[in-house]
């Protein structure tokens, strides 16, 4: 239960960070992505600020085998730069550029009562579910071929 409280507050902090940063306003995100128009560089400062703190935290994490509470530390092990990674990134970036929403800000805007954010989140969940289904079909086909 203690853990659930921490996770709630980390989610709250992350959500507040997104709002303060301007990430929950799609027109601001698109202003950053519009290099050829009136470019708003603000989002570079969001990434810069986040990575500034993150560099220290992950340097500490890499030297440890457990988290501060003694539990498991799940650092990613995959280092492959493959077709999936790049194609997934391109699909995601296209969606991000169409609406100006990435997953975090969309969920926070849903909490703020934005109807279009709600529709975006439902479509995003449908996309994630579609991915799961395609993955399972692919796995079955691979298993069947052997």
């Amino acid at each position, binding site marked *: 239960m203690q853990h659930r409280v921490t996770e709630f507050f980390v989610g709250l902090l992350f959500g507040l960070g997104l709002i303060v940063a301007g990430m929950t306003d799609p027109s601001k995100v698109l*202003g950053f992505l519009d290099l050829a128009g009136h470019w708003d560089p603000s989002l570079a400062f969001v990434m810069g600020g986040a990575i500034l703190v993150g560099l220290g935290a992950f340097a500490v994490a890499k030297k440890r085998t457990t988290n501060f509470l003694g539990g498991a530390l799940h650092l990613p092990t995959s280092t492959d730069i493959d077709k999936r990674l790049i194609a997934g990134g391109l699909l995601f970036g296209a969606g*991000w550029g169409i609406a100006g929403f990435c997953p975090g800000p969309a969920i926070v805007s849903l909490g703020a009562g934005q109807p279009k954010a709600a529709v975006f989140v439902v479509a995003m969940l449908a996309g994630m579910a579609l991915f799961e289904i395609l993955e399972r079909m692919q796995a079955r086909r691979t298993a069947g071929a052997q």
Partner: protein
Amino acid sequence: MTIDWNHFTPWASLVGGILLGLASAAFILVNGRILGISGIVGGLLRPKAGDAGWRIAFVLGMLVAPLLYMRVAGPVVATIDASWGAVVLAGLLVGVGTRYGSGCTSGHGVCGLSRLSPRSLAATLSFMGAGFAIVFVIRHLIA
């Protein structure tokens, strides 16, 4: 290219970014996990036993954030120009793409770059590149 000085918010964005960094730091050091929204949410679709609680707690925190912000600081401004159809298409692309590419702006962009992962750098360049390209097409070729 011209700089949009009217909308440029370096300080607010820097402070917001630091908050995102602090949240990511707390998540890896206290909970032992990468703070990646698409992974946290995607894992709820087919949760393993005992793996849903922390995801739900985190998402609830995100949903409460705007309510708290609105009470203290004022409205959460969001200008969404995309049509309903475009919003649906965008959501589908983001859903499939983030799962296929194992992450989004938080997991690859913030946490991945912070841990100096070449894989996450490649992912970040992919989605940033696609974002720049599609906005160029929509705003400068079609419109």
